[in-house]
C-alpha cells in the first residue's frame, strides 16, 4: 500500500498490514471469484460462519433491503468445518493476509470438535472468531452470546483448546455490551468484535405475512452505524483488550470515527456489496489523519475521542 505509512497494527495476537478486515459472511471463499485488486487495503479476511456439519441455510427469501440497510436471513449456509479445512482454508491463503475463521456452534461439544479439527491447520488460521451472535439460526448462534453464563462457558472452553489468537464476535442484542466484553476478556479472549447484525424484521404487506420464514433477520449497513459506534464506545470503555468495530461502516470517515471511539481495527461487510474500493479508501483516510495529527502509527488513533 504505497503512501499508506503507519497502518501496520498488532491487534489481538494478530499482526496485520492495515486495520481493515473483511467481515464474516460477505466474501466468496473461492479466490477464482475475487475481482481483481478487490482486496487492496484489506489487512485480514474473515471466513463465512462455519459449523461442524454442512448446512444449507434458511429456505425462502434471504435478503431484503430496508432504508439504508439490509436485512439478511442466510442461516449459516456453509460446507462444514471438514470441507472448509480440506478445500478452502489453503486456497484462502492466496490473499496473503491473515485469515480469521468464524466459528458457530450449538453445543460445547460441537465447539470442541470444530476447534480440534482446526488445530492441525493452526498455522493457516490468523485467529478464531467465536461467533456467539448469529441471529439467524434456531439453536446456538446468538443464544450463547446473550447469556452471561453461556458466554463465559463458551469462551473459557475455547480458550482451553485453542492456543492461537482468540476473538469473540458479540451480539448487539446483549443487555450490556460493556459487561459482555469484560466476560470475554476475563475468560481469555484477545479481542472482541463489536458487533454482529441487529435484530429486525420486515412484513410482506401483499401477502400479509412476515417477509422472512424465520420472521426476524439481521440488519446491517449504514442504518446501523450510529448504533454500532455507540456499542464500540461502551465496549472500549469497559475492557483493555482491543475492540474491533463492526457495523455500518460505509465511508472512510466512518472507519475513522470507529477508531477515534476506541476501536483498534474495523470490519467491513455490507459496504463491500456496492463498493470494493472502500478498504483502500479507508487506508488513505487513516494515513491522512496520522499525518495531519503527526501520529506515529494507526494504533495512536484508537480512542482519541475519549481523551
Amino acid at each position, binding site marked *: 500500500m504505497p503512501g499508506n505509512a503507519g497502518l501496520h497494527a498488532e491487534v489481538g495476537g494478530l499482526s496485520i498490514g492495515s486495520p481493515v478486515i473483511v467481515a464474516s459472511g460477505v466474501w466468496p471463499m473461492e479466490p*477464482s*471469484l475475487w*475481482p481483481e485488486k478487490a482486496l487492496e487495503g484489506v489487512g485480514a479476511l474473515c471466513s463465512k460462519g462455519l459449523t461442524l456439519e454442512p448446512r444449507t441455510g434458511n429456505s425462502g427469501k*434471504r435478503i431484503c*433491503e430496508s432504508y*439504508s440497510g*439490509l436485512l439478511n436471513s*442466510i442461516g449459516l449456509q456453509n460446507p462444514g468445518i471438514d470441507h472448509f479445512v480440506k478445500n478452502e482454508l489453503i486456497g484462502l491463503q492466496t490473499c496473503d493476509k491473515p485469515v480469521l475463521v468464524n466459528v458457530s456452534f450449538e453445543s460445547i461439544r460441537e465447539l470442541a470438535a470444530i476447534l480440534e479439527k482446526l488445530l492441525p491447520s493452526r498455522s493457516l488460521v490468523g485467529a478464531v472468531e467465536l461467533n456467539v451472535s448469529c441471529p439467524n439460526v434456531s439453536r446456538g448462534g446468538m443464544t450463547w452470546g446473550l447469556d452471561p453464563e453461556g458466554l463465559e462457558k463458551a469462551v473459557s472452553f475455547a480458550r482451553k483448546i485453542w492456543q492461537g489468537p482468540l476473538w469473540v464476535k458479540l451480539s448487539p442484542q446483549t443487555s450490556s455490551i460493556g459487561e459482555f466484553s469484560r466476560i470475554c476478556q476475563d475468560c481469555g479472549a484477545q479481542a472482541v468484535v463489536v458487533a454482529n447484525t441487529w435484530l429486525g424484521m420486515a412484513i410482506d404487506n401483499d401477502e400479509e405475512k412476515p417477509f422472512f420464514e424465520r420472521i426476524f433477520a439481521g440488519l446491517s449497513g*449504514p442504518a446501523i452505524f450510529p448504533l454500532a459506534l455507540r456499542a464500540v464506545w461502551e465496549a472500549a470503555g469497559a475492557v483493555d483488550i482491543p475492540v474491533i468495530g463492526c457495523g455500518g461502516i460505509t465511508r472512510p470517515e466512518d472507519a475513522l470515527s470507529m477508531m477515534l471511539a476506541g476501536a483498534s481495527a474495523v470490519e467491513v461487510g455490507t459496504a463491500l*456489496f456496492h463498493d470494493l474500493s472502500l478498504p483502500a479508501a479507508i487506508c488513505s483516510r487513516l494515513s491522512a489523519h496520522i499525518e495531519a495529527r503527526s501520529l506515529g502509527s494507526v494504533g495512536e488513533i484508537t480512542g482519541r475521542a475519549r481523551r
Partner: protein
Amino acid sequence: MALNVSVQGAETSDRKGRIVLTESVGRGCRHIRVEIESGCCRPDPGQFFLIRERGVFDPLLGRPLAPIASSNNSLDFLFRIVGRGTSHMASLPPGTEVDLRGPCGRGFPGPVKRRLILVSGSLGIAPFLDASARYRDKMEVTVILGVPGNGWEEFAKWCSSRVPGLRITSDDGTLGNRGNAVEEALSVIEPGDEVWGCGPNAMLRELGHLFKIGSGRILVSLESRMACGIGGCLGCSLPTATGMKRVCVDGPVFEWQEIFPNAW
C-alpha cells in the same frame, strides 16, 4: 449437468458509469443507456450488472439487470418499475453518475444446436434482445415474447422494432396470439432445437414440455434477490439437483434439469 463455462472473477469489477439516455417504453418500463468511464468488456447474453446511483445510500444495493445491448463503452438496459430500486433508477435524468458491478455470472454459452428458440416472459426478453442480434446472422433464431396483453402495446412494439420476426403472445389475446409463450414455442419447435428461457419461474418450469418434442437442450436464466453479485453473501442461493447454487456466480443461466429435477 452443470454448464461448462468458467466464470472469471477477475472480469467482474466495480465500474463508474453515466446515464446518457433514458426513455419510457410503455407503461412502467424504461430503457436506459449507460456510458462506462473506463470501457467495458462485452458481456455474454444473460450476464448481468448490479446498477445503482453513485454516492446514494438509499436505495443501498445495486439492482441486477441484464444488458439488452453493449458496445466497448456503453451498456443498454431495459427494465420494469416494480419497487423502490427500479423506480429510483427510472427517475434519474441523463448525466446521473451510476456504479455498476459486472459483468457478473455465467451467461448463455454459444448455442450448440442448429436452431435456437428464445422464450421470454415480459422483461425476460432483455438478454434475448442481445442474443438475437448476435446470433441471427449465424443461425435460425426464433424469439417469442409472452406478455399479459392490455397495456403492453408500446413495449411489444418497441421489442418488435428490435427483433425482426418477433412472435408475440398475450394472456388476454389483445396482442399477437392468445396464449402463453411456452404454447407458442410448442407450435414452432422441431426435434433437436436448442431452447433458452427467461421469465417467471412458472414459465421456465413449463418449458420442460419441450423436451417431450425432442428439444436438444434447454437453458434457463433465473432471478433471485441479490446483494453482492460475486458469490460472497449467499443471499441468492437456491436448491438445485446438484446442491445449493448461487444464482449470481453459478448462474444465472442453468440447465433446465438442474433447476427442475422433479418437474416430470
